[in-house]
């Protein structure tokens, strides 16, 4: 069996995932990358994207992240993010509604601040939906 390391996803609301895993692949601001056991210490920022985990039993689990940071240190990997959902946890209807309202804000034109916020919300909703549709 391949060597494993400890992996955690933590949001302000809860610890979403905490287990030993074989590998993860994530989408950093500088491009996609993978982490295996004994990876060099690393700190990086993540995009609003999908993160794939290959756990100790070789099962693949996917999560949608709302940006965040990833740290690798001595076979401990931590992801800190504002929000994170697993495949089965996406509330499709609500996400669609969020998406629509964000699109509305973008097309109707509001203040720059509102638009920026809508852009973030839209991106998140799209990532959430991507996780469900694959």
């Amino acid at each position, binding site marked *: 069996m391949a060597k494993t390391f400890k992996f955690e996803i*933590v949001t*302000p609301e809860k610890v979403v995932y905490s287990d030993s895993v074989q590998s993860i692949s994530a989408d950093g601001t500088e491009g996609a990358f993978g982490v295996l056991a004994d990876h060099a210490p690393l700190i990086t*920022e993540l995009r609003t994207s999908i993160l794939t985990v290959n756990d100790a039993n070789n099962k693949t689990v996917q999560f949608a992240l709302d940006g965040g940071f990833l740290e690798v240190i001595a076979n401990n990997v931590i992801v800190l993010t504002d929000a994170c959902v697993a495949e089965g946890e996406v509330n499709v209807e609500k996400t669609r509604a969020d998406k629509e309202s964000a699109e509305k804000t973008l097309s109707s034109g509001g203040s720059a601040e509102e638009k920026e916020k809508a852009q973030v919300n839209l991106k998140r909703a799209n990532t959430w939906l991507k996780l469900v549709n694959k």
Partner: protein
Amino acid sequence: MLSTREIKQRIRSITSIKQITRAMEMVAASRLKRVEFRVIASRTYTEKMHQVLSRLISCRPPEISHPLFTDEGHKAGNVKIVLITGDKGLCGAYNNNIIKKTVEFIRENASKKVKLILLGKKGNIYFSKGNFVYAKERYIPEPVEKFGYNKVQTLAAQLVAGYEEGEFGELHIFFTKFNTVMQSFPTSIRLLPLEKDMFDLKGKSVGEYIIEPSADQILEHLFPKYIETQLYQCILESLTSEFAARRVAMIAATENAGEMIDELTRSYNKARQEAITKELLEVISGAEALIQG
């Protein structure tokens, strides 16, 4: 001495008070449980964030030029405080303690211009009248319990922006730190400017990191995030303390009501007994008078 009827009435009213306090205790207990989960989860996040930040700072050159670290160019006399209180009373000294602490701070820093941002109705009521009205800046009319992470983000963003513009030189948070159900502490922390000591690893260096894109760019995003999580943590701590305090207060109230009922029942029995004795005496003495006559 009260009449038996009056005592009975009292017993009835206290019994219904007892029912109410017990119900309130149970409500507080269930809410406490819910918010306790949140505070523990958030503590994990805050701690991890702090660790990551400390390690990141430790592998950078000692001078940090980030705007959140310096109070240069700020109106040094301006101090901003976020005061977190409860929306409701009936929770022992919870609201009073933290308000008292804030008032002390304002008194001690009379030379500075202290401005309060109030979260929680009770704080607003206190600072809307009386000697310290001048310190109130604004009230956030939102129930503390509904003040979720996204709202904290908005507030934190406003505060950070205000600080970066030099509008104020210090940011403090006054909140109640939750320890156990029986114990919580009115606490204040200074959030801004940040200090390097706050992120000291105490000699536990971690060696070289690969940092992408660059330490400065990550810090740029991580610092505001850190302020957010601290603020969120403080709000949750306060909320948990409030429910704990309310639960304790209601348990005490229920117990007291029970004791009072016991006492009243005793004096009711006494009064009843006395009335019977008196009546008997009257009957007997009446009868004796008849015999003698």
